[in-house]
Every structure is written in C-alpha cells, then in structure tokens.
C-alpha cells in the first residue's frame, strides 16, 4: 500500500497495498517530552484524494490511516510501532478467537456496548460483521482475496445471494463463527484489516466515501465532511467510549485535511508554520537539509518493504538463468540506494529484515561487472534488445535509467519506458502488457513471509490479468513447499521455510534483482508529538497530540 507523489503531483500514485505491520523500527528521533495534552486541531495535508473513505474499498495508506481512527474490527493490530505493532489483539471481540477443527473454525465473542455513531446510533452486533464481509463481494472490493478461504465465499462471489454459509452470526449469544476451507495461519491478520471493519447492516452496496449519513463511525473519530479535491474534516466521535486500551481515546479534537498539497509545498508550509503534518514522506532531496535544520522534527519510518527489479522468465533474454544472474551481479546496490537519497538499506533478500526469523541474510551476488559480462557472453544473448519498464514517480525514473545503463554496459541493448504510477501497476500485472524487465516493489499486507514468497513467486497464482507473479516464476517443487507452509501455524518453523525458499529462489532462479529495503522519512511541525508508525495502519492519529 503506497501512495507516493512526485513534487508536482505529476505522479499521483495508485493504491497498492502493503499494509505493513510488524515493521522494523519506527518513531524515534523527536522531542516527545512530557505527558500528552488533549485538544487542538491538526492541520494536515495530502497531495490528492484518498482512494476511498469506505473501509470495504480503501486500499491505500491514506485511507487506512483515516479509517483506523474512525472504525473498528473484531481484532486489531496493536496500536504500537515496530515489532509490537505486528501483534494481533482483540478489539470489538472481547478476546482472541477460539480456534478449533484443526485450524478451520474461528469463534469470536463480540463485546457488548460498542456503538455505531449517529444516525445509526445502535450497538454493534455480530451480524454487522457478517454483513460487512459479504458487502465486500457486493461492492467489488479489492480486499475480497483475503476472505475467499471462507466456506461458501466462492459461491457467494458468483451469486451474491443467500449470504456466505461459512460465516455464522448469532446476535443473541453475541458470537460469530468463521468456517474455513483449510487451515490458514494468517486469518487473524485478515480480520484485523479495515476490510473486515464493522459497518451497520443496511449500508448501501456502493462507495460510501461521499455519503455522509453512511460514514458511520465506531472509533474515537468520525469524518464529518469530505469534499473531494478540497478537504476532509475529522472530529471526535461523541458516542465513542474506549472499551480497551488498544482502542484509546484520541488526544486531538480533530483533523483538518487540505487536499492538493504537493510534497515540496508541504515542506515549505510546515517550515512556515501553516501545516502540522503531511501524509507523504519528505521528498528525498530535501531530507539532508531538513535533518540538519530541524533534527527533532524528522522521523525515520521503516516498514517491511522490498524494492526490486523483476525479470520475466517467459521473455527473451530473461528466460535464461545466466542472464538473470548477470543482472544480479551487475547492479551496484549501494549506487541504487544513493538514487533514493540514501533512504534505504541495500539487500539481496526477498523477505525484509522486519519479519523476524523468516529473514536470513544471504549475499549471493556481490557487485561484479566482469562476471556479469561473462555470463551474458556465456548465454549468447549479446546485443539483445531490452526495454526496462518503470513508473514516473521520483526517483524511480532514475533507478530505471540506472538499470538500463548497466544493461548496456554488460552487452545488452536497453531502452526505458515509464508510465504514470497510477497506470503502471495494472499494466505490468497484465500478461498482455508483458514487460521483459522492470521496477517494482512490495510492501507487506500483513507481517508474514507468505505475503512475499507466496504472493509473488508461487506459480499456482499466475493469471492473465491482475498477476502478482510478475516474473512468471513457476517451480512446482517450491510451489508445494509454499502451500505446506501456508497451512502451518505462525512461528519459527514456518518462518524457517520462508527463509529457505528466499535463499533457494535467489540462488536457483534469480528472477528477482532485489536491491533495497526502503524507508519513508517524515517531517512534521515542532508542535506535533506522539507520532507512532504502525506497520499496518501506518500513522496513528489517536496517538498524536499538539503542544503550544
């Protein structure tokens, strides 16, 4: 999930998901001193409209940051930064679910007394959760993929009638039961994403972002107005009463979001005292100066990201293993990190370091241009024409040009093609578009190796449209090991398989050329404190507070 905007808004990005939870480090720096103060309105800025303010539809950082403050699910990721934020804890559920039937049945008890805000103004019932998940299928949500493992979801996706048989809600007993077709170690994570947040029964089957009476809140804040291309106004939810320390009261009285602020403008306005906080990270080129000038106002936020070049195994010349290895040898990862303003750590792994034991550092491809040239010769593909694809959000065009330059150096004939970021991801995910090699990155949807290895490399998922296996990698033996791991409970044993596969894919397949785990530094006003960067929901508005 990412939305990066170039200085210029020439490149407003799309929604990619990556709700990274469990990221590595987080909110450090800063002059957070003294106890939090209540009150005040946060002046926030955002480059463009958030994709949606409907929990069923939003699939971007911007949307989730806001929805985390306004709505709730059965479970939640702990409202903390770093590794602690990767833990799933009860929210509207009174406790963690009881898992039976060999991991195929999840039973939740719903906490009584949690209220929907006006005009619905009633208690949240188990049937509201069932309704909300079924609604995902009816509004064509991008998040349905997380819930297709529920019994009956497949049929419901087609018929949209009669409900999903595998979700049983009992409003009297205040319980809701999910039956899965097979064990799934990450089901609790899915339940904690905004897609599974509670909306009241009767919510229309269309985007509620701009329908005020249906933007019903359960959390500490509610969206009081949304004028696309202009502003979002968020105020305290008067019906909210904190029911667990994991869903606390907010400190701010509200948030005024100004839409259409470019990243450069945000830096200038924050320095001028006209803005407190901005949705995007600092433009890479401004960072050095800001760090020197306002060291206490710059926060280095890290999330579980892998930034890499993908090579399409179905396309000449990358159908040859030697060529793919050559690319891995030929890129100088330190040079690429420089292109990103130093905002990242070089890596050769698929899995980011924030995923605990699933990450086991390997160093198979030390920078070696001579070796790369020799491998290209060996493969007999010298002079092959290659088009490197990338999107136009800075500094990706520089990275793509760097790669093209390197490919030319090792004996290929490279050109570059860039697309607006909002179109790019859809284009590369379509077999018809079919790039040979290109830039991509992945930010976790949930903090688990599966989200990297299974999503991007399991050949069983190759499809013609909406394909996440950009490299078209399909190694049956590895696919089988992935499927095995997916059924295992979370933990070290499962992580060990991810770590092993990471190594094997890089050594024997090398369709990825990973180069960096990227960071997103933030610059905020000197009055703003209490910044917490959660890997899943990103920045948490309820933790923020303003001082004079």
């Amino acid at each position: 999930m990412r939305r990066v905007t170039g200085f210029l808004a020439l490149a407003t990005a799309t929604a990619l998901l990556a709700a990274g939870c469990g990221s590595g480090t987080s909110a450090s720096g800063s002059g957070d001193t003294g106890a939090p103060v209540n009150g005040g309105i946060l002046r926030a800025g955002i480059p463009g409209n958030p994709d949606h303010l409907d929990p069923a539809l939003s699939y971007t950082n911007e949307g989730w940051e806001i929805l985390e403050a306004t709505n709730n699910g059965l479970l939640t990721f702990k409202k903390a930064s770093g590794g602690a934020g990767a833990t799933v804890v009860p929210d509207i559920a009174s406790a963690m679910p009881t898992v039976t039937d060999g991991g195929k049945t999840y039973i939740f008890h719903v906490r009584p007394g949690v209220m929907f805000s006006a005009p619905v103004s009633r208690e949240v019932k188990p049937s509201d959760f069932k309704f909300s998940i079924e609604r995902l299928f009816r509004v064509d949500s991008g998040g349905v993929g997380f819930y297709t493992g529920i019994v009956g979801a497949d049929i419901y996706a087609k018929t949209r009638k009669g409900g999903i048989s595998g979700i049983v809600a009992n409003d009297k007993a205040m319980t809701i039961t999910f039956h899965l077709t097979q064990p799934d170690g990450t089901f609790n994570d899915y339940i904690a994403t905004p897609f599974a947040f509670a909306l009241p029964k009767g919510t229309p089957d269309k985007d509620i972002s701009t329908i005020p009476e249906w933007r019903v809140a359960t959390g500490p804040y509610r969206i009081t107005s949304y004028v696309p291309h202009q502003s979002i106004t968020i105020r305290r939810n008067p019906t909210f009463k904190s029911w667990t320390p994991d869903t606390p009261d907010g400190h701010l009285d509200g948030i005024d979001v100004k839409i259409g602020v470019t990243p450069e403008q945000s830096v200038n306005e924050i320095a001028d005292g006209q803005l407190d906080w901005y949705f995007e990270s600092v433009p890479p080129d401004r960072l050095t100066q800001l760090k020197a000038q306002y060291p206490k106002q710059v926060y280095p936020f890290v999330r579980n990201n892998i930034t890499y070049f993908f090579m399409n195994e179905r396309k000449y010349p990358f159908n040859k293993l030697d060529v793919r290895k050559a690319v891995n040898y030929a890129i100088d990862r330190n040079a690429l990190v420089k292109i990103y303003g130093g905002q990242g750590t070089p890596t050769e792994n698929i899995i980011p370091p924030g995923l605990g034991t699933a990450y086991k550092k390997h160093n198979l491809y030390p920078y070696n241009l001579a070796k790369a040239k020799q491998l290209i010769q060996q493969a007999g593909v010298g002079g092959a024409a290659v088009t490197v694809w990338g999107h136009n959000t800075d500094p990706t065009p520089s990275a793509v040009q760097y790669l093209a330059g390197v490919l030319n150096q090792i004996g290929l004939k490279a050109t570059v093609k860039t697309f607006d970021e909002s179109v790019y991801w859809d284009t590369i995910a379509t077999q018809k578009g079919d790039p040979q090699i290109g830039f991509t990155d992945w930010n976790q949807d949930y903090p688990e190796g599966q989200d990297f290895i299974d999503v991007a490399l399991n050949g069983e998922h190759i499809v013609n449209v909406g394909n996440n296996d950009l490299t078209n990698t399909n190694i049956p033996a590895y696919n089988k090991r992935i499927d095995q791991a997916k059924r295992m409970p979370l933990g070290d044993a499962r992580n060990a398989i991810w770590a092993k596969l990471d190594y094997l894919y890089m050594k024997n397949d090398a369709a990825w050329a990973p180069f960096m785990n990227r960071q997103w530094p933030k610059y905020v006003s000197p009055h703003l404190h209490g910044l917490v960067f959660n890997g899943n929901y990103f920045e948490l508005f309820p933790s923020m507070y303003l001082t004079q």
Partner: protein
Amino acid sequence: MVRLLLGRLAGLVAVLVAISVMVFVIFNVIPGGDPALRLAGRHPTQQNIRQIRHDWGFDQPLYTQYFDMMNHLFIERDLISYQDQTPVLPAIRRGIPRTLSLAIGAALIWMIFGITIGVLSGLYQGRWLDRVLTVVALAGVSIPIFWLGAVLLYLLTYKYHSWPVFSWIPPGGYVPFTQDPAGWATHLFLPWITLAVVSIGFYARVVRNSLLDTRHQDYVRTAKAKGLSPSRVLVRHTLRTCLIPVVTLFGLDFGAVVGGTVILIEPIFGLEGVGQYAQESVAHLDLPPLMALTLYGAFFVVFFNMLADLTYLWLDPRSRTT
C-alpha cells in the same frame, strides 16, 4: 445575424460530439487503460475482475458504453471517475472558480501591460524603447511556461524567500476569494505573473503594429485635420480601431488558456483547478473526468472563438456599416 449565430451554435455542438467520440475511441484502445483492473485493487480474484467488468458495463459493446457515459454526463449528471470513484461534475464545478480566478487575473494583467507597452512602443516607433520592447515581447512567448512557473516558485518561495520583498509569497495552493480576498490574491500572484509574462510581449507587438497601421488611415488623418488634440485623436479614434485585432486574439487566447494552458500551470502551483484535474485525469488515464474535461476545454476554445468573431463584426466600423 441570428442565422449566423444559430449556424455557429450548431457547429459548436457538432464539434463537441465529434471530440467526445474521438476521446472515447482513443482511450478504449489503450492497453493500460483497462479500468476494471484499477477498480479491482491489488489483490483481485479473477471472479472479482469479471464481476467488475459486468457491473460497470465494460463487457458491453463500445457504442453502448459511449451512450451510457454521455447519459451519465449530460442527463443523469452523476458521472463518476474510475480512479477514486468520486463524482466528476462537482469536482469540475469546484475547479472552475479557481481556474477562472487564474485566467481572468492573468488576462487583466497581460491586457493592461500589453496595451500600455504596445501603445508606447508604437508612439516611439523605431527608437530604443521600441526595439527593446520587441525583443522582450519575443522573449516572452519563447519561455516554456511550466519552466517559468517552476523557476519563479523555486526562487521566490524558497531560495530568496527570506528576503522581505518575497516573504509574503506563499508556496502554492489556493484560498477562495470569499474566504480571504488578500490570501486569494497572494496565492494567485505568481501564477498570474507566470501566465501573463508569456502573453504581455505578444499583445504589445500586436497593439504596436495595429497602431502603426491605423495611424495612417484616412479617418485618423481627417480627425487630425479637424484640429482635435493629438491625445484625443489617439484615444477616440486610433486606439479604438487598433484594438479590434486585439479583441479577436484575446478571444482565441482566453479560450485556449482556460481550455488548455492551465494544465501546465495549475499543477505547479497546486491550484487544484480544472487544469490540474485534467492533468491528473490524463495521467491516470481516467476516462470519465477526461471526457468531461475535454468537452469543457473544447467548449471554451470554440465558444470564445465564436465570441471573438461576433465581437469583431460588432466592433469593426467597416463591417458594421456594410
């Protein structure tokens, strides 16, 4: 006159229809433009994509889709964008005051300065002032407008922002006039200057040449012979006539600015007007707003051209008498 007007209006409608068909066709042959994928998000199931195709009518024949879109645009007036599914028409309505604030303000500046400089230049024909103004005029039209905006923004709101002369200039954005007239003007100051600089010189040239032409016309000589004071001759007779081509040009330019050039300026200053909306939609290959905005832009181009023609007929004494 009425027939002429009706004929022109019919032409306007025909052009708009043709343009809408063209836009529709162009955007339906773009491979990256498949909106179903975008609507599906990043974890779509195949079923999901098929369902979206069906729900949004992308599986219908193209002509059905076209009429459907026209229906939502003109009759139902509830067209929504593929990118973020926000309503298109309210977004355009909100953008119009911003774009018009930019265009009208800049037009005032370039007309006032353009005419003043042009008249001075014409009165001092052949002297150094005239020559300098000629070069300045051509330099103005030779600047890439987005570059000028970007460099001014950098110099005045960043590099020399600490200088008291520039410190009042905000780093972009827009404030509605009704909310804060002073803020409105300060926010629009740089965009106005940027847009005006490109045209001032050109208008000065046109006014100058036109002035030189008319000064030697018969009726001006007659007026002089009748003993009217030179300044009176200039204002009452010469200026009036020499502004005719300027008015025509202004019609064309104003249409072109509102319908097109703002695309390059608004994003630089973050004005979020119609131009920025157009630039974002075209970058996102977002057909619904793009369709609405292209028709809007074309309307301005054609409409102001028509207005210019009619004004010409009305202003030109020769065409009126005949």
